[in-house]
């Protein structure tokens, strides 16, 4: 019996270490909360987890004891007839009460946590410091708009750390789901069904998000990043976007050639680029907005890091990187000009939002490359 207790204690200890240790930390882990919402969700999980141990020890302990203690020892024992008891009312009522108590122990903190994390925020009466974002799911990318700041971007949600972010959720086609495990549990994006999620990132950092509702095709590659900046970093980012329409194409001839190609190849038929022509809007709002693309850390809805090589690979054959996505392949396999043209477009795209060519190279990977 003593050894048994030690073994159980050891198991509990091992489980504690496993959960407490950094084993389960990660940029997309619900067990590595980086804000109060995800923390509350993890806390309630841990509460049910610890409650499950006495239940499991009770049930499995009794079961294992019973099958060992009451096993038929030999062939004739297997023919013996034990006392044919039909039940025990007191015991059954006791167990019902025990089960009910356990359920109540789960239910009370559950209801508290629901109202602490799932209350809808009235977006017409936001508190000072709140950031409002409208997120729209598309097959297979996310559009992020900041209605109060006049910014539209895609697949990377830049937020200020320590401030509440309220995200209004919508879908342009099928169901999607907005999930950043480190910051908050998921909330579905459903057509004609206004939805909302809110969260706070305690610290600056990069958190992975992913669509969690089947949307066919490239569903597995429908990812995004939430990048929390300190207030100064966030303000700089906002300023870069609000000034994007006025930015001047860099003097580098490669960049200049890239800008022409973006028109010739038809990119601007879909992709909006603020500042592509001064005061002439291009693109279509239902496709990823490439304004200040040089500040992005990823390509193709967070599928690849935004490096010149990856961007070139993506432009050369988008289907190889992200099967079934809707980006057309613009160069046939043996197109002799492909490499030169792609280099130019890459140079142009990476220059967007970046002050000059010299620092463009440094800032590849964006403002946030260091994180």
């Amino acid at each position, binding site marked *: 019996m003593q050894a048994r207790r030690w073994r159980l204690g050891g198991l509990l200890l091992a489980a504690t270490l496993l959960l407490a240790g950094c*084993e389960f930390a*990660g940029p997309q*882990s*619900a067990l590595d909360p980086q804000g109060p919402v995800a923390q509350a*969700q*993890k806390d309630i*999980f841990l509460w*049910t987890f610890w409650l499950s141990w006495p*239940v*499991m020890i009770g*049930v*499995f302990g009794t*079961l294992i004891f019973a099958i060992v203690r*009451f*096993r*038929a020892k030999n062939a004739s*024992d297997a023919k*013996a*007839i*034990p*006392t*044919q*008891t*039909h*039940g*025990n009312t007191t*015991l059954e009522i006791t*167990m*019902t009460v025990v*089960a009910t108590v356990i*359920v109540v122990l*789960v*239910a009370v903190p*559950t*209801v508290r*946590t*629901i109202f602490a994390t*799932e*209350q809808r925020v009235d977006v017409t009466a936001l508190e000072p410091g709140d950031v409002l974002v409208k997120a729209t799911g598309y097959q297979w990318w996310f559009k992020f708009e900041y209605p109060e700041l006049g910014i539209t971007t895609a697949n990377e949600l830049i937020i200020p750390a320590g401030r509440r972010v309220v995200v209004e959720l919508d879908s342009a*086609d*099928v*169901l999607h789901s907005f999930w950043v*495990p480190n910051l*908050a*549990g998921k*909330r*579905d994006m*459903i057509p*004609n069904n*206004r939805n909302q999620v809110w969260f706070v990132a305690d610290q600056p950092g990069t958190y*992975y998000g992913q669509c*969690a*509702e*089947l*949307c*066919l*095709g490239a*569903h*597995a590659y429908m990812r995004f990043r939430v990048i929390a900046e300190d207030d100064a970093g966030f303000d700089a980012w906002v300023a870069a976007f609000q000034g994007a329409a006025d930015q001047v194409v860099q003097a580098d001839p490669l960049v200049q050639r890239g800008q022409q190609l973006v028109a010739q190849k038809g990119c601007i038929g879909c992709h909006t680029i603020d500042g592509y022509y001064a005061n002439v809007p291009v693109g279509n709002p239902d496709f990823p907005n490439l304004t200040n693309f040089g500040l992005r850390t990823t390509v193709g809805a967070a599928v690849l890091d935004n490096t010149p090589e990856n961007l070139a690979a993506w432009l050369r054959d988008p289907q190889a990187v992200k*099967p079934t996505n809707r980006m057309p392949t613009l160069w046939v396999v043996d197109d002799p000009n492909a490499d030169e043209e792609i280099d130019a477009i890459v140079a142009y795209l990476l220059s967007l939002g970046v002050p000059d060519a010299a620092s463009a190279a440094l800032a590849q990977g964006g403002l946030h490359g260091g994180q």
Partner: protein
Amino acid sequence: MAVSKVTVAAPAGSGVFTRPNWDAGWLSWLTTVDHKRLGLLYIFTSFLFMSAASIEAFLIRLQLAVPNNTVLNPDAYNQMFTMHGVTMVFLAIMPLGIGFANYFVPLQIGARDLAFPRLNAFGYWIYAVGGLFVYSSFFLGGAPDAGWFAYSPLTSLSNNPGNGTDFYMIGLFVGGIGTLVTAMNLIVTIISMRAPGMTMMRVPVFTWMMLVTAFMIIFAFPPLTIALFQVIMDRTFGTLFYVPQAGAMPILWQHLFWIFGHPEVYIIVLPAFGVISEVIPTFSRKPLFGYPVIILSGIFIGFMGFAVWSHHMFTTGLGPVVNTAFALTSFVIGIPTGIKIFNWVGTIWGGKVVFTTSMLYAISFLITFTIGGITGIMLAVPPFDAQAQDSYFVVAHFHYVMGGGALMAFFAGVYYWFPKMSGKMMDERIGKLGFWFLVPGLHLIFFPQHIAGLMGMPRRTQTYVAGIGLELPNLLSTAGTFVMMIGLILLAVNLVHGLLRGKPAGNDPWDGRTLEWATTSPPPHHDFDRQPVVNDRDAHWVQKYPESVHGHRVPESASEPYDANGIHMPGQSWYPFIMGIAFLPFSYGLLYHNFWVLGLSILIFFVGTFGWAFEGVGGHHLPAGGHAHPKGARS
């Protein structure tokens, strides 16, 4: 020796086909109305579909063994997991329960057949036709790919122009008819055909659970049928039930689907509870602990099963009040389930536990299902569900409940009832060897998936990000597939081995408690030579050990002869088969918008209905109170 057929002039029928009386040959399987043969057909067909679903699962796990694998492209992957889910839920596990019910409900209540034998055959043929139809999609442009719950608007014509979705919608629509008629048949049978003396509180638990299940089917399938009908209308005739651009609210589908879908979970699990409630008492040699509580818990689960559907929708933004309400109902449904587990352990306590393969599966069910129940309570906590919903944590949870729970219980049932169905024993050594591959393999597959889900892996993605901690759980999971596969192969080997080489079973190899063990193995066509009369719960046990239960002698029951003129056996019939098969052209006609074929199938159906109605009784009589055993039976 065989009972000689005494053909009594049956009332002449007016059908095109006379009712056949053959009892051998492959044609007899098409026209049979015998509940035992139909039960075997259900079980055999569900095993076929289960094999297909296992292959699909195997491919899914191969694809996920390492990140960025290329075994399956996204489209193929979507078809695989959709068909795996559709098959397991609708074509494998649920029909397996119905197959056991077909075979054993009449035997357990001392009846000679289900109330409506031809309707029973009709239900089977529709199930077979629906399953074949859905599977034909693989050869006709691609299988369904929108997941087993086919969320709108992913199923709308503009978002999913291929035929796969039509196969899903029409296949389930047609298959649902078969399930419904079978449920009605079971209800009538259990209510009105119990042996003399078998009051409701003496009915064996498996039969009780099938009664609750049948009622759940009756109430659960209509919402699904409505939803399927809406989508079929959308896709066939251009209605706008689920077209968001026209202002539709696609979330309606989720409500309609889950108000079917959650009861469906219990439609699968309650028969499994029933099997466990037969196996554990038999191999503990003790009555079920707390029989009335088990029954009432089952009924309570049946009711509450309809009050928890929105816990599948906690992340759809129903608001904190609705989420609280459904969280609480979901917690409440955990209580009767917990009580059942307690009662099964209580049954073992103080008994004489005989470790047959069947009992091993039953014990593994208790452990696995308890873990699945605990993660179920966790998932009923909406704030945690926000993280776990649509992640691998959910995948792990429902495979613990459906695979490690329901399926393991049915495997216990296979080992338990195989001797009764075949008259032969399965090999215990192969059985136990298979068990020790199958169940540990199952845990190796699904336990790491809890962790993968918590680490941020969504379900239904054909690949995952490398470097965020998902590689190890996925690799373990895939390794588990190989281990479990060995167990499944050993199970199949054991089934074949048992059929070909099995030792004779005798009537009552396990010293059973319920009436099916009172007749021969396999039972004669008419089930019982004489009408059993019941005077206690565990009717067969008290006949064998009359003093063991109440401390005093239970009077021996006097079984009665059925009829002074002999037992009338109804003739077989072509019409259930014809009318069932008519749904095949019906389905293809609807799918390909060929309204000539559609009209023809409806014509066949109606002509069949008239033939069915007017074909007469047919059949033959067996001698009254026959003491002789039919061919092949051993006692």
